[in-house]
């Protein structure tokens, strides 16, 4: 069984146990005398969670985090059992711990998968942005009339902008959050201007439509440029 499946199994079992025992957790007043153990337990779990994420490729500090996490968990867990008269707490935290370990395993497996996917399935946004810009140029240059322009804009929205936006998660993966936010913001603003060009065309405001189209083009070009500045090599 691979790491992802174990992660899911652990998470689901732990989460279900925790959910069920959360129903009958006693009132806050019974927790109060032991809330210091409670805090230590949480700290232990957090350390374990963050350390566990990198167990396979972690540094010495990560491994240290795991050891400290386990010690804290054992210490506070035992103290909790001794201090409270309800086993429900124990079951709840057992569930949380299992689910936490499952989540860490899943996170680890997914980040590895992402790295593999990033290498294997590179989606080239440059070509697609170029196509969008070309389609806008066609409308501007050909001047076929309002009805034809409206259809052309709908075609851009449905067949070019929508598929591009559907790949946003891939782009975030390929380029990292900062660059993705930068270039995709330009793309989205361009898309909004395409929507404005369509609306103004319906409202018989041809000048505004033409102006919005040129603004849209500017923004798509800007998105292209933002990517190109960071990834000139991949502009094939």
């Amino acid at each position, binding site marked *: 069984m691979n790491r992802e499946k174990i992660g899911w199994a652990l*998470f689901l079992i732990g*989460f*279900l146990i*925790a*959910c*069920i025992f*959360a*129903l*009958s*957790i006693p*009132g*806050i007043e019974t*927790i109060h005398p032991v809330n210091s153990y409670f805090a230590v337990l949480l700290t232990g779990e957090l350390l374990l*969670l963050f350390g566990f994420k990198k167990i396979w490729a972690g540094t010495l500090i990560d491994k240290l985090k795991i050891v400290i996490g386990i010690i804290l968990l054992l210490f506070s867990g035992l103290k909790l059992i001794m201090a409270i008269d309800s086993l429900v707490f124990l079951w*709840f935290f057992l569930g*949380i711990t299992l*689910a*936490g370990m499952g*989540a860490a395993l*899943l*996170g680890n497996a*997914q980040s590895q998968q992402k790295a593999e996917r990033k290498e294997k399935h590179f989606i080239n946004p440059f070509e697609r942005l170029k196509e969008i810009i070309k389609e806008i140029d066609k409308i501007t240059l050909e001047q076929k009339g309002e009805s034809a322009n*409206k259809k052309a804009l709908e075609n851009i929205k*449905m*067949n070019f902008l*929508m598929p591009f*936006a*559907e790949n*946003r998660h891939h782009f*975030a993966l390929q380029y990292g*959050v*900062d660059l*993705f*936010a*930068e270039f*995709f*913001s330009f793309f*989205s*603003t361009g*898309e*909004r*201007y*395409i*929507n*404005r*060009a*369509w*609306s*103004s*065309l*319906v*409202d018989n*405001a041809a*000048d*505004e439509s033409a102006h*919005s189209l040129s*603004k849209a083009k*500017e*923004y798509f070009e*800007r998105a292209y440029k933002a990517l190109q500045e960071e990834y000139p090599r991949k502009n094939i």
Partner: protein
Amino acid sequence: MKSKYREVTPAAVILGIFQGIIMTAAFVYAGLKLGFSLGGSTIAAIMGFAVLKGLLGKGSIVENNINQTIASGINTTGAGVIFTLPVLLLMGKQFKIMPMILAAFAGSIMGIVVIIPLRKQMIDLERLRFPSGTAVAAILTSPGAGITRALLLIIGFIFSMSAVMSIKMGLIAKEVPLGIWLGLPVYTQTAIAISLMNIGAGLLTGKNGLPFALGGCLAYWIMAPTAVMTGWISQNGLPATELTEAIYMTMIRPLGIGMLIGGAIMGVIKAFPLVKAAIKTIQNAARSGFGGQEELHIQYIYLGIGVSFIILLVSILWGAKGISLPIAFLLSVIGTFWIGLAGLIVAECTGITDISPLSGLALIAVTLMLALSHNNITASVFIGLAVCVAIGQCADMMQDLKTGFLVGGKPIYQQIAQICVAWIGPLVSIGVVLLLWKGIGFGPGTDLPAPQAAALQAMIEGIVGGKAPLHHYLSGSILGGLLSTLPLGGLGVLVGLGMYLPFSITLGYGLGCVINMGIEKLTSSRFIEKYIVPLAAGFIVGEALTELIYSVIHILGSI
């Protein structure tokens, strides 16, 4: 000669304000009578067509968008006011009116400004659906959208209207009682609400909304039966309906609220890099000046938060007796943070499911404030009022900005328009509530039972009496936080929301999601966009308008 494209015009602003005031007054009355509030965007958009395009003959799509932004921005505050202010009146608490208006005004401004920086992240980058915003955009663009789309919108509208009317006339039941047909116990609440609006929201969202339905399944098919079978909930010969109510109110609902909060906090931590990057793009755009100003400058947002914080502080010091400056300061700080977090939760919930967990978030605010102010009910309700109004503004601003994106409106115009009219809603809604209180009176046993406020009053009395289910909030928040660590976006919030709401709503929404997924598998996402979106928009608009008309008829009939 090149004429300027009509967007922010005196006609749009005046019509928006006029509609906003009328709707606020009417919906406050309806809310006190019927116990639920209505959204004003759809009716404002349709009226906008009639007046701007029909009567004045020169309206544009984006101009109508400004009209509906203003109208709904004013009208949205009513829901928060009717949920909180009547509590003080019903409990016989003495308070000054002016500070109350100030608290609502502070909430109104804060709700708008805290959510503006998230527009880029939620609408531009994450592309959340915001079903009501999408439906309003479908109305605004319907004249040019082609005959097929217009027809689908009308068909959806007629179906939805027929369903609501059939229920009101008693021709069909409110729910499909699946649980009874399958022989399941009553406490599993297995039924599907006949609400095409609900199914329509699911149809618009698709697979992203499925965790919401799964949250309901977990609560009612696993947790509720376990609670009964293990004897954790005492049956003691309780009738089935009371047992169901007891499970929901004492266990599942507080756990759901906790999950919402824990999920949101973890979500904020996880989404922080994207939010930061999105805000950076706003700052960069403002600095470089590229393309002109598209978004309200971040400095105005900081200014708005600062000013509304001071107004909130002044309103507590002025309006609540027995509150010292340090406590008032603490309440304002925590209240402001809570508005930020609650705004984020609400934006995410409405972005995916169209449902805003207003009562749960207000309840947490009031619980927190009661604990911090040593059970000072007036001060706590003041903050609760600010939070409720802010939450409404957050949800409405994001829905409006989504509509704006789809029709090509400029976000900065919508943002400024909504901020400029933020004072009107609190003034009108508080005025109407006080007028009704002094005129005909309201509360349980009267013609205006104010059911939402009565429920909050009962909860406050429970909290003051030491019966707040804090342990469930806490354990729920740990569970929600854990869910949100998974590599699937917003899981904690969605599952929590699914637990927090009645199962019949969750199942109906889930059905919509499953239908969307099935259609997408058989056809394509373009088919969904072309045919399903207008149909689902028709469902949403049809139910909203029919409910509104019914409320008016019902109220007129009882005068």
